[in-house]
């Protein structure tokens, strides 16, 4: 070994280490509640995180701080929220490390979840290990009930694929009974966690309801041309077209279906139909298109939420996850104020058992998941993305068939 060389290297390493760790020490205000989150600001997840999640965090924090902070009974005053945010670069390993950093270095009082099923699962063990409530509202997985058992601190607001599929199947069965559609369905799904989980549940659900799957294929992420799939779906003679797709594909499917004049009686597409971009991009042509989520026209809470969201971010929220995410933050706020201090086990307990007032109405969780709290299937009707299933009060009647495309 050469001493000069290793001495230099050592100094360099030390300097950089000091820089990195020194950076972690952030001035502490004793009178603040620290909330931390690591979310995908860059990488493939950023598109979703930027629409559904980050705006909600910013909105909620601003509102709470405008009120003077969270009311902590134990000290008898309001305490403002301080935010520490990191970028997980859409990468599991980075996400795990960032959350560990938030817990052990920044010593945050609360954590917000990352975006997407994969990352919420990746950070699950860390949230669990340190006992932070994890209010995941951008993850759909059939494992949700198991996960809630394994990690009692985790809450799965969007529920399981089966819930969505059951609602969709009920809707389609009714249409078939009314003679509005035939019993054949064409389905495509993206070859990623979301598409596969939902298409698997759908396959079982359709079969049980005696629907015929005339076309059933997956396509890889990054597919730039979906016209062959649409061609096959069109030729299959199915009246119902179901796609469990991601935002760029959802837009491409709509666009290419329009070009091919393929207007199935029921057109159900995946993530992105509820994005503000969608009506901007397709104007009147969105009429009759169905997807996940949905809003209730008569619900004043969500209408107010939408106005606040628009005022702060200058765009509409996502009509699937956004309102649920905001409701989850309201629940967290109420749980903390009821407990009256940052006592995480008590907050988790309160979330599990309490009843909460949210923009969606009263919510009480069962097995760490909301039940019938919000629409599962929605449809664009006269410029409003309205909830149409599961059947219940406040749901609009579904419109079939979808009108022909206006070129």
């Amino acid at each position, binding site marked *: 070994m050469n001493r000069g060389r290793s001495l230099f290297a050592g100094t360099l390493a030390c300097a950089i280490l000091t820089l990195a760790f020194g950076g972690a020490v952030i001035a502490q205000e004793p009178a603040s509640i620290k909330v931390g989150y690591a979310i995908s600001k860059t990488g493939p997840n950023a598109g979703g995180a930027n629409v559904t999640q980050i705006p909600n965090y910013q909105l909620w924090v601003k509102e709470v701080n405008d009120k003077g902070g969270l009311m902590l009974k134990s000290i008898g005053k309001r305490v403002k929220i301080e935010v520490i945010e990191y970028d997980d*670069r859409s990468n*599991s*390993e980075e996400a795990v490390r960032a959350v560990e950093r938030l*817990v052990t270095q920044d010593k945050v009082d609360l954590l917000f979840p990352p975006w997407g099923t994969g990352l919420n699962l990746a950070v*699950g063990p860390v949230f669990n290990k340190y006992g932070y409530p994890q209010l995941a509202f951008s993850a759909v997985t059939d494992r949700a009930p198991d996960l809630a058992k394994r990690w009692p601190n985790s809450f799965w607001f969007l529920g399981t694929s089966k819930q969505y599929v059951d609602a969709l199947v009920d809707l389609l069965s009714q249409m078939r009974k009314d003679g509005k559609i035939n019993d054949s369905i064409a389905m495509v799904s993206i070859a990623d966690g979301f598409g596969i989980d939902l298409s698997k549940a759908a396959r079982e659900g359709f079969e049980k309801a005696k629907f015929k799957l005339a076309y059933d294929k997956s396509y890889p992420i990054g597919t730039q041309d979906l016209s062959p799939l649409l061609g096959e779906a069109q030729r299959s003679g199915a009246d119902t077209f179901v796609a469990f797709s991601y935002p760029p594909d959802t837009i491409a499917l709509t666009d290419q279906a329009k070009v091919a004049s393929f207007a199935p009686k029921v057109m159900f597409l995946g993530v992105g139909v509820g994005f503000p971009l969608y009506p901007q991009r397709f104007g009147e042509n969105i009429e009759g298109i169905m997807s996940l989520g949905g809003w209730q026209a008569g619900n004043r809470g969500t209408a107010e939420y939408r106005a606040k969201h628009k005022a702060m971010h200058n765009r509409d929220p996502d009509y699937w996850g956004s309102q649920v995410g905001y409701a989850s933050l309201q629940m967290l706020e109420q749980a903390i104020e009821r407990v009256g201090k940052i006592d995480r086990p008590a907050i988790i307990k309160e979330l599990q058992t309490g009843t909460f007032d949210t923009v969606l109405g009263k919510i009480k969780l069962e097995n760490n998941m909301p039940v019938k709290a919000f629409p599962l299937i929605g449809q664009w009707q006269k410029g409003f993305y309205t909830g149409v299933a599961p059947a219940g009060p406040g749901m609009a009647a579904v419109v079939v068939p979808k009108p022909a495309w206006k070129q």
Partner: protein
Amino acid sequence: MKPVLALAAAAIAVAFLAAVPLYADAYQLSLAITLMNYTVLATAWSLFSGPTRYVSLATVAFFGIGAYTVAVLAERMAWPYILLIALAVGLAVALVVGLSTLRLSGVYFVIFTFGLAELIRQIVTWYEVNVTRTLGRYVFVDIDAADIYWQLLGLAVLAFAAGVLIRRSRLGLALRVIGDDETVARHIGINTTFAKVALFALSASFMTLCGAVMAPRWTYIDPAIAFNPVVSFQVLIMALLGGVHRLYGPLFGVVPLVLLFEFLLARFPNHFSILVGLAFMLIVYAIPQGIVGFAERIARGKRGAA
């Protein structure tokens, strides 16, 4: 005398590193795992690419094979068997890539390896979607962060040991000749095929094991996570930046870059991209020969002056 000293120094360093989990908190350990992970990958990468100058983007193919094998087999058999199976799969693919070097060189080899990694990801995805009907596997095994760290440290030690032994062997000499001029190497009777394939297989083995060891970190693994092409690029950049003409070169790319990324991500989460890009360009322009080359030049300069 000198080698003994170096060996002793290395032993002390390893002992020191092995003690990290005993006093580090979760975050520091986690950072140490990232450092160790990239150290293994970049060192393994330069085992082959350093002397032969074949630039490979297949790193994540092997890393992913390792990680995915664990995802498939976790909870089904004992850990050492899983590692062996991962290794076998990795070796089989390594032979294909190794043999492709018989026909391809330069940038054609670079993109070939990239294409191969993507092909593997596509095939795994298709298989999961259409055959097993589940994409995204859950890994619930009883291996904690400290275990992962120690296993990575073990791999790093093995990788360095392998590097030292190869450099001293006939194989190492053969590879250096290949790197200078492959035609000459063939003319003077070096079995270039064997040398290249053997070394590539060795390098790939380390990457595969590294992926397998890392898998329990994530709970949830799907092909997009396991075969993330960013890993290949990051390893390549780290190794090139450190300098591949020394065995310990990549280490000097890994440590500053991982820390730089970490620092910028934490302090400037909203301007990470711009800053990391600028830092990167600064390094490239200011330190042309890689960090080790730069350090060596300074050391030489000092000695000359003294």
